[in-house]
């Protein structure tokens, strides 16, 4: 096959998988038009599920499979995709990086669209550098950390990172922008603008919805993403060469790759065009030893060589390729970091000793230790949560739980019969539960308590009952008692005072969300009482 054709196959494949990733990302939300037939299917509480296989890329990612297995002893659903990918890597090298990886494609696009360096400087930037060992250091650290009980893979795994960045920062960022524009147009007094904003909002709603999505620390997630993109100006595909732990893993597996770069030293005129175009800094030039583990199989060198001195060929000879150049320091450093990280992560006591009152995990979450072994911090549950309650944790879960999901009840609440987060979790850190299970067991995520100093009727300021009205359990976990309280003027007036029945409360948080006392509501949820923990309980139980 001609090199041109192969190059176009690569480009089409990259475009396809990038678009597929974005499509699945956009589809990771509850559609605005779900239709359920009320007359037939409603013998029990109905589960609403997403239509598309939105976890596909997470199933394809061998790093997620491997760390989930090593850390949480859990075989994630659809893991055979990842095994298939490893087999392909064994045969063809890092084709995932060159042909499939959506994050690689984005980096590739940016490096290609405006190359920061020209001529000789580009050739120098594309020479293999010692910094490329960092990714092996990261891989070893993450794998060892996972074995030792703290799975931080998701912070650096390209699929998780890309989903988190696009889903929690880029998409909501654009959405917030256009939503404010629509609101401004709808508020204007020009009828044409009103009508335009009305139909335009319906038009974009399948992607952006109708509300303002917001995530805590999303600015930092976005900034982190931008920095990674910017690094492409220092060296093309900086992330893939230097940092990507998945690339490192695939690099190690490509050791036995049958697809090899065959160099013809005699034909080479030393023009260095291959090095100039090389995406992985894999020493494609004849005379240098090809770095098989660094090669992203982008086929640029093959295509750019004017003398046909380079070609990718299947060689069935049993010999192995050049070993990945990890460097002793990177390996040792990785070992030390990987062993110490889990201990460092536990030093703040969040895992074993104290639990933050505001660490309210999504319904169906595993106990905290197991949760941290599986959660990839990918943001799928956060993007899928219809009420926008699930947010990345900052300090609530300690260092080991940075960016893991937790519910912020002033931003949203957990809908009583919604079980979407568990159904989208790619690793099973949040179990898949049905609405029936969630209600009947019940699955508690915390408990409510009344802050009597703030509460309007308790403090004698006004009648209210909003919390009781919204309480979704039947019988209600928030009940009212008629009483006489003293108002600010000293006169007594009769009110209904809210009380919480802890036996019934599931901690859904709608009371906190709807409480008229804004900011720090008069009724709040604490994690105590959550059913996933045996220890974090309040009542003795029966």
């Amino acid at each position: 096959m001609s090199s041109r054709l192969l190059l176009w196959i690569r480009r089409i494949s990259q475009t396809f998988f990038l678009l597929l990733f974005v499509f699945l990302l956009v589809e990771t939300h509850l559609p605005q038009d779900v239709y359920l037939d009320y007359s037939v299917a409603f013998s029990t509480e109905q589960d609403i599920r997403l239509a598309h296989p939105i976890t596909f890329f997470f199933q394809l990612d061998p790093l997620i499979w491997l760390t989930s297995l090593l850390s949480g002893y859990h075989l994630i659903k659809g893991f055979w995709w990842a095994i298939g990918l490893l087999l392909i890597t064994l045969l063809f090298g890092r084709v995932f990086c060159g042909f499939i990886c959506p994050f690689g494609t984005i980096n590739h696009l940016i490096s290609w669209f405006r190359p920061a360096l020209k001529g000789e400087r580009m050739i120098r930037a594309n020479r293999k550098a010692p910094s490329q060992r960092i990714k092996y250091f990261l891989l070893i650290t993450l794998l060892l950390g996972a074995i030792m009980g703290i799975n931080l893979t998701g912070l650096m795994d390209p699929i998780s990172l890309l989903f988190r960045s696009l889903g929690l920062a880029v998409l909501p960022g654009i959405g917030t922008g256009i939503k404010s524009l629509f609101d401004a147009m709808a508020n204007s007094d020009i009828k044409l603008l009103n009508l335009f904003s009305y139909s335009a909002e319906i038009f974009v709603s399948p992607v952006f919805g109708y509300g303002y999505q917001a995530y805590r620390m999303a600015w930092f997630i976005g900034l982190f993403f931008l920095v990674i993109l910017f690094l492409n100006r220092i060296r093309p595909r900086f992330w893939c060469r230097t940092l990507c732990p998945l690339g490192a893993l695939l690099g190690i597996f490509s050791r036995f790759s049958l697809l090899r770069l065959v160099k013809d030293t005699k034909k080479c005129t030393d023009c260095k065009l291959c090095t100039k175009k090389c995406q992985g800094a894999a020493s494609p030039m004849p005379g240098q030893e090809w770095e098989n583990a660094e090669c992203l199989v982008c086929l640029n060198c093959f295509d750019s060589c004017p003398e046909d001195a380079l070609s990718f060929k299947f060689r069935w000879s049993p010999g192995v390729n050049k070993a990945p150049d990890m460097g002793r320091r990177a390996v040792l450093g990785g070992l030390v970091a990987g062993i110490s990280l889990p201990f460092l992560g536990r030093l703040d006591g969040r895992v074993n000793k104290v639990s933050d009152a505001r660490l309210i995990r999504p319904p169906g979450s595993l106990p905290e230790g197991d949760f941290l072994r599986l959660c990839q911090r990918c943001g799928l549950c956060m993007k899928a949560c219809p009420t926008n309650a699930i947010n990345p944790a900052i300090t609530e879960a300690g260092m080991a739980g940075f960016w893991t999901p937790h519910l912020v009840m002033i931003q949203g609440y957990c809908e009583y019969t919604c079980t979407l987060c568990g159904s989208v979790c790619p690793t099973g850190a949040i179990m898949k539960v049905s609405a029936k299970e969630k209600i009947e067991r019940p699955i508690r995520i915390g408990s409510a308590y009344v802050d009597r100093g703030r509460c309007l009727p308790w403090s004698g300021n006004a009648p209210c009952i909003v919390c009781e009205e919204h309480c979704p359990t039947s019988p209600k976990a928030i009940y009212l008692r008629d009483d006489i309280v003293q108002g600010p003027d000293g006169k007594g007036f009769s009110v209904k005072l809210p009380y919480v029945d802890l036996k019934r409360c599931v901690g859904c948080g709608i009371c906190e969300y709807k409480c008229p006392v804004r900011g720090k509501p008069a009724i709040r949820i604490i994690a105590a009482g959550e059913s996933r923990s045996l220890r974090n309980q309040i009542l003795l139980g029966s």
Partner: protein
Amino acid sequence: MDSRQFITRRGFLKRLSQLSGGLALTGFATWPIQIPRLAWAGQKSGGFIVEGVGQKENYSVKLLVRNVFDAAGGIQKFISKGDVVAIKPNVSWARRPQLAATTNPEVLEGVIELCQEAGAKKVRIADNTIHYASRCFALTGVGIVAKKTGAELIYPRSSLLRDMKIRGHRLDVWPVFVPLVEADKVINLPIAKVHGLSGLTLGMKSWIGGVGGRRNALHQDIHQSIVDLAQFFRPNVTMIDATRIMIRNGPSGGSPSDVVAKNTLILSDDPVAADAMAATVLFGYNPKDIGFISLGQKWGLGTYDLDKLNQKRVLL
């Protein structure tokens, strides 16, 4: 001078900001608060009230809807050809219809079909839900009714809330869900259920779902707020869905044991009378004891004295 004048990036930004600032200013200047359609109107006389009861087992809810409207003089009495009709069901909660937290979708379907038969240009379903709207639409059955009948289901959103003069005794300016105001005819289609503070959730209370903003603060003077809103919205006709009613744990319920089948529909052009009849017939209250009903009469919104109205009863 060189005819080709290049605009610098800085200059462009400057000009852009001037332009958009100017536009924003014009927009702001021409942005009055909308004048309400109706001020406090006097009490209408010669109103009617129809109670329809399905007595047979497996009676057709849609047929009952039709018969009740026919008893009131037919749907043509309310809907003219070419009208834009806004229907306000109660779909506050993401609950299946059997739990009686939301308007029965069959009733809604029946009313939409009648409006379409009467030649309505557009039928819109609008409610500012409490739970997440698309879950409400899916679980209550409203979504599939809209799809089946071709009615337009309006997704509640901030761009459709606009500050309007309520001119009530308690509420002055409040964000209102625009589709319920910008319509030729408005039909209120609430469900009957109990409520912790106001006693009952019926037709007038359902208008809390017609506004946005800090509506959880309305509870601080719930009865007057309800009457203010009912006065503002003034539906052409109210049909209270009592095919199933919620008698406990209102207004959200959640258990089949909270529900009682009453197989009743109440239709009236008098919002106070409709609520009064529902309170009496369904829940056994004296309407005077329900704050918003007696206030509604006091402020001339209607009457709870049903004898003043033309009463009819339809059995199926």
